[in-house]
């Protein structure tokens, strides 16, 4: 693994599609380096799985080629390919009655004889792989009795036992709860530090921003590549969702519901109380004007800033909203020692609430 920036997999002018003349992806080119962790994102049906299958050598592209160190994947003998690239599909394959050990040992196929005989070296590798994903206590358990998270770990162990330099995983964290999701990503990240190259697809942006060295986004049949932050800078994430009623808030790496914010609220207070209050208000469809941040700024700019924060882009709406925008509702956070309260000032009266639930019930009611 001496040379860290060694290019291992390249593709140039790759076209993918199922029907002649209809392409999912056009002219995709990139180079994968040893030890990189690459996340692939894109809306449903944009061809993420197809791209992963193609660079795993499972299906041929409509045009172009994928090279594993100067040699085309599609002209390599299957056993050679299987010693270099492993693939884990979406979801888990349930094979009843197979133990974790037996399942993982299938990963040794590229190295075993015609009968699939497991030798000592293979056995060691299998145990190592099971240990690596933290499933050693389940070595002799039957796979169909495991939970989704455990099964996903077994699938990764199988792919690890295959001992390939490149691991490709199609949505490895789909259907998993947060601890399992993080657990899987930590395992993949650990692999990277062992010199493996990991390519995975995901719909979760925090996965990308926390783990990936590089991101591939498929958008409008093009493959956009770069560091996750590079794509943020050039507005790829906003563009991905521009026609979908969802806006990407680059400041907070959060998705906002477009057209959802129809009233403004002025909010005072700070710290964790402010954070959660703001989230509750936004969920209820209120744009929060930042008292602290906007203090001292001219009114015009403040409105603009508010729109940017919430991803509100429609100019027409701004005009309509202006009448009630002038802080018709104001929420003051009264941070107490043990309990906190929210004072709502509207139409000249003040009401006090002790939970965000009550506050939101009131606000949603008056609007």
């Amino acid at each position, binding site marked *: 693994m001496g040379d860290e920036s060694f290019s291992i997999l390249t593709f140039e002018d790759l076209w993918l599609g199922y029907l002649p003349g209809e392409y999912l992806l056009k002219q995709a080119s990139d180079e994968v380096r040893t030890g990189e962790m690459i996340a692939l994102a894109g809306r449903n049906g944009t061809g993420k799985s197809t791209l992963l*299958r193609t660079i*795993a*050598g*499972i299906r041929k592209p409509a045009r172009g080629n994928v090279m594993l160190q100067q040699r085309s994947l599609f002209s390599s003998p*299957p*056993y*050679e*390919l*299987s*010693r270099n*690239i*492993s*693939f884990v*599909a979406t979801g888990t*394959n*349930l*094979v*009843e*009655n*197979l*133990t974790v*050990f*037996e399942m993982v*040992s*299938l*990963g040794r*196929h*590229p190295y*075993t004889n*015609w*009968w*699939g005989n*497991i030798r000592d070296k293979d*056995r060691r590798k299998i145990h190592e792989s099971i240990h690596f994903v933290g499933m050693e206590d389940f070595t*002799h358990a039957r796979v169909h009795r495991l939970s989704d998270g455990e099964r996903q770990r077994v699938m990764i162990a199988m792919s690890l036992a*295959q001992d390939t330099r490149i691991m490709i995983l199609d949505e490895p964290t789909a259907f998993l709860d947060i601890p399992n999701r993080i657990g899987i990503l930590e395992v993949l990240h650990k692999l990277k530090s062992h010199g493996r190259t990991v390519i995975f697809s995901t719909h979760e942006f925090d996965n990308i921003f926390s783990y990936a060295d590089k991101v591939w986004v498929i958008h409008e049949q093009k493959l956009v590549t770069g560091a996750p932050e590079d794509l943020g800078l050039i507005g790829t994430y906003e563009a991905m969702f521009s026609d979908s009623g969802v806006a990407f808030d680059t400041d907070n790496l959060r998705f906002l519901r477009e057209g959802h914010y129809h009233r403004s609220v002025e909010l005072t207070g700070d710290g964790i109380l402010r954070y959660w209050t703001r989230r509750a208000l936004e969920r209820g469809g209120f744009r929060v004007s930042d008292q602290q941040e906007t203090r001292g700024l001219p009114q015009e700019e403040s409105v603009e800033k508010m729109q940017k924060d919430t991803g509100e882009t429609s100019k027409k709406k701004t005009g309509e909203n202006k009448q009630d925008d002038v802080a018709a509702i104001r929420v003051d956070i009264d941070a107490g020692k043990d309990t906190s309260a929210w004072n709502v000032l509207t139409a000249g009266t003040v009401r006090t609430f002790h939970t965000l639930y009550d506050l939101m019930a009131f606000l949603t009611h008056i609007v």
Partner: protein
Amino acid sequence: MTRLSKSKFLFQIILLAVLLVVLVGLDISLGTVKIPFRSIVGFLFSDSVLSRQQELILLDFRIPRVVTALLAGAALSVSGLQMQTIFRNPLAGPYILGISSGASLGAALVLLGTGAMATGIFARWGIVAAAWIGAASVMFILLLVTIRIRNIMTILILGIMFSSGLSAVISLMQYFGNAAALKSFVIWSMGSLGAVSGSALSVMLIAIVPGLLIALLSVKGLNAMMLGEEYAGSLGVSVRTTRVLVFASTSILAGTVTAFCGPIGFIGIAVPHITRFLTGRSDMRFLVPATLLVGMIVLVFSDIISQVPGSDRILPINAITSLIGIPVVVWVVISSKKLFN
């Protein structure tokens, strides 16, 4: 397999083999003329302790019959296991998906086409070859269908329709056949383990042994195919080669048995499940040899039942295997979560 499970595997295999030997002994000694088990063992290892009549019965009837049962049991159950694996369908089997009907149609074409002349060794091979072609054609159509349709139930229903369609064609052919041809066809179609002897048995042996060997050769591929073709491919297994091997093996095995014994139902579909249930394994390196043994056990057992110990009637073997197999299939349908996903 870990070392521990390897020794357990040998133990289970030996246990099955012992059970098989006992049943074979029973099957040989039971019948209209009872031949004591001890005298059979004596006959096999030293010189004759049997009467001339007993010796004739043993050599001309009982032993060919039990060898036929062993071959047919092994062939049908291994072909069922292979089909269940490559179709990834727990309800696949040569009988239910119409492979046996395809073989029947092939055999019917020869039997009804050539009249009653189909008795010599040449005609024997003719029937076998026609049955292979019939079985392979159905298998081929099924493979084409499964490329497009993944739903287990849909394939199953198509298989049943296919099988019924072929049976309808066969009955139409019977209607047009001449009396002598019809008679030989009807006798064939009733199916029996006792009808195979002498040269026919050697033809059956020559066909089935390579079929079983091919199945053993494809064990590694079958193991990978359990995970689906995509995984098999990325594990370096040639999906095409495995498919061709399984295709050839299944057609030879199911085709040959059907050609000689007539249609025998539910062994192919039920035995792999009985084996999985008894041993708790799915690893093909274990399952293929174990299924082979259990298939032999079940068919020899069915043969014993069909002779109705204590009477001189012989019941049709197909009825017995159906009565044993159907409850297993019902159990699989009810207990399998996979079918409804």
